[in-house]
């Protein structure tokens, strides 16, 4: 069986959850013997590989074909890079670094956040739509030039490409919903994005959602028939190197929020919970690591509550700093308002950190050894923080059981489920 997959970034250019999930799943799929993947990605990095790209078909879009031999993979996979300015999400500074464009120029297409949300201001909208349309034209050409049995498209920017490939080849389409605009926008859905998402879902023969939470949104908000929507949970890459222990420069416990400081992540609830804890006890510090459009507001909120001496902002953390921050932490908290899945608590568990997560996150459906509260229930959140700090046996148990739980969550088994879904979809067609 061969899959034409419209995915996102590969190492070393992974910048967030969608890329991580795409990579992990593809790696898992590469373990399946009779499955081959033709992987197509939009490529925006203006690096040395550009001159190797060639134009294909009638389109003026360049495509680089190469055999990708990632060490971790069980086999090489065919890998097509399409020159395109589509990116799943990007940090403004990061983007400048990777592309050499200034943010303003790049913003013409993709001033997106980590879930691919684009703040349409009208004048950029058309350009993005042009870019999506261009990409789907390439998709059509690729699908005409290659043999495959099934198409798999990851998240809304690639749905039109998936549809185009389906129309050109007549092969069934599986779309993978990593997030919907309802998660990204907090309910204020962008009609253009919604439309693209809905068309993709309607055209798909099968839909994979990353949690039942997302499945419910797909069924209820997009009016999709439940029979064709299946939940397959994400997993996490095993930890290769645990690194050395970090010594804190102080005795206090550290409670960490790590992620984008945006409405979707619920940072203000974390601050309220921190305030409640600090009113009662002293030997604890709170860290908000990350950046985002609500950061300034959060700094003000912390100052207003008068807890700035115990509440710290780190700004955007990169690479090893993320893992170091986790290793220093005694509690990890993710009070997301709407999180389709949420891989980062799994990474915290790998780093031996007990986690508190909101019921409004997909990962809460599958995790046993995590404390779960509603994102708005700051009392319960504060109570959980207090307990993890003051009842050491609990924290200890979370570490050991959490670690063994997270070790058992493997991409291979998610991939196996995806493979079974391919087979079912092919039979149904």
């Amino acid at each position, binding site marked *: 069986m061969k899959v034409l997959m419209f995915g996102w970034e590969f190492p070393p250019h992974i910048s967030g959850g969608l890329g991580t999930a795409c990579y992990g799943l593809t790696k898992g799929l590469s373990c399946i013997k009779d499955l081959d993947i033709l992987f197509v990605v939009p490529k925006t990095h203006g690096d040395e590989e550009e001159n190797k790209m060639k134009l294909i078909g009638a389109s003026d879009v360049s495509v680089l074909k190469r055999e990708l031999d990632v060490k971790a993979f069980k086999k090489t996979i065919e890998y097509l890079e399409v020159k395109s300015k589509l990116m799943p999400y990007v940090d403004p500074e990061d983007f400048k670094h990777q592309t050499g464009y200034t943010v303003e120029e790049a913003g013409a297409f993709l001033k997106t956040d980590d879930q691919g949300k684009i703040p349409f201001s009208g004048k950029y909208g058309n350009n993005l739509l042009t870019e999506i349309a261009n990409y789907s034209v390439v998709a059509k050409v690729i699908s005409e030039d290659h043999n495959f049995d099934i198409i798999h498209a990851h998240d809304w920017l690639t749905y039109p490409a998936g549809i185009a490939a389906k129309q050109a080849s007549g092969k069934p389409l599986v779309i993978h919903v990593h997030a919907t605009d309802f998660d990204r926008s907090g309910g204020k859905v962008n009609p253009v994005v919604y439309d693209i998402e809905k068309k993709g879902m309607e055209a798909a023969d099968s839909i994979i959602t990353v949690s039942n939470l997302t499945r419910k949104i797909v069924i209820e908000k997009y009016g999709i028939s439940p029979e064709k929507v299946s939940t397959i949970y994400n997993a996490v890459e095993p930890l290769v190197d645990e690194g050395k222990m970090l010594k804190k420069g102080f005795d206090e416990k550290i409670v960490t929020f790590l992620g984008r400081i945006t409405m979707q992540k619920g940072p203000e609830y974390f601050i309220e919970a921190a305030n*409640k804890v600090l*009113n*009662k006890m002293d030997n604890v510090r709170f860290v908000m690591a990350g950046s985002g459009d609500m950061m300034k507001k959060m700094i003000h909120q912390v100052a207003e509550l008068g807890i700035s001496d115990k509440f710290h902002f780190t700004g955007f953390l990169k690479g090893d700093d993320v893992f170091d921050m986790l290793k220093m932490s005694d509690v990890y908290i993710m009070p997301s308002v709407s999180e389709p899945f949420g891989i980062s608590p799994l990474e915290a568990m790998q780093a031996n950190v007990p986690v508190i997560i909101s019921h409004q996150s997909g990962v809460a459906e599958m995790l*046993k*050894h995590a*404390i*779960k509260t509603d994102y708005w229930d700051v*009392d*319960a959140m*504060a*109570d*959980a923080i*207090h*307990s993890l700090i*003051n*009842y050491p*046996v*609990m924290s*200890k*148990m*979370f570490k050991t*059981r959490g670690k063994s739980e997270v070790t058992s969550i493997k991409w291979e088994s998610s991939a196996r489920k995806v493979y079974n879904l391919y087979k079912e979809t092919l039979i149904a067609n």
Partner: protein
Amino acid sequence: MKTICLYFQIHQPFRLKPYRFFDMGHDDYYYDDYNNETIVRRIADNCYLPSNKILLELIKKHKGNFKISFSISGTAIDQFQLYAPDVIESFQKLAETNCVEFLGETYAHSLVGLKDENEFKKQVIKHSDKIEQLFGKRPQVFRNTELIYSNQIGHMVDDMGFKAVLTEGAQNILGWKSPNYLYHHPVHSNLKVLLKNYKLSDDIAFRFSNINWSQWPLTAKKYVSWLNEINKEEEIINLFMDYETFGEHQKKEIGIFSFLQSLPDEVFKQTSFSFKTPFETSLHHKPIAPINIETPISWADENRDLSAWLGNELQHEAFNKLYALKEKIQLCNDNKLLLNWQYLQTSDHFYYMCTKHCSDGDVHAYFNPYENPYAAFMNYMNVLNDFSIRLNKAIENNKSQTSKHEKTVKQLSCELV
């Protein structure tokens, strides 16, 4: 003559309300009144009242030949008095027939028997007092929380004058032996041991409504025919189960009440069995052998051990922190604190912290107010910490009052001199 010995367990814990750490030091009321009242009232209407009515009719109908026994925990009695006094009255009516035996247990349905002999005895006496006061007779037969039993527990209850004790007919204890005989304690041979026939008990308590069970639907006629298939030599069938089996776990609609109603009729029609209470059973039959139980057993789950209450680190921590207070409790004379001390020992609090993941999980989920074991632990520890703070304060007050008293005495004696 062969014997059927029926015993039903009635227990309700005082479930805790969500108690946050910032309530500590501010709020000394720990219980979820709304949930407790709702649950007790519901089970009273679904189970206790209708079942008591049926049993009373059966006792009258069979003119003293149908006998049963109950064990009612102190925390259940307290809640009946608060929320369902009609349940107490209906048990009193049953007690008046003289065909019903009430067994002894720890007042709070606690695990103290595994921890401290003095405290254990105190709680058993407190329970016996309550039963005697309500039903006119002091218990002579003992059953420990969740049928938890070992030689050591047998030793303690023998010392208190109990004549017999009930426990699980666990396979790992019995080996090739049958639960269908009377046994005795290996040292205190006067203490008889009755063992639950878990197969026949669970046919009613767990499998009755299971439509995937090959024997479904179970009728009294069929069930009694199984009693006849038992080895002719064997003397006693001990059917021990939660009373909530009737109307709560097994629903009225599935026919559990008509099963109960026709059970004695079928027994008398088809067999030579008679019904006896545990105490009568212990007098009537001769013990066949000693039964040696070194490690405590229980009637819970597949393992029949303590792992449902003391199986993980959380449970051990909470258990040890609780009993670390027992010395201080000796110095306390505040009634409210002493009552909380009882209610906080109830085994259910530890049961909610169980992390075993198997088919037993369903049973553990029943009536469980917590989403997961961690939530149960956090809430319990918050409450226990507040309790501990209050206990320390009360003892401080006692001390300062005692020293004040001593000072006054000294002063007076000085003046006299």
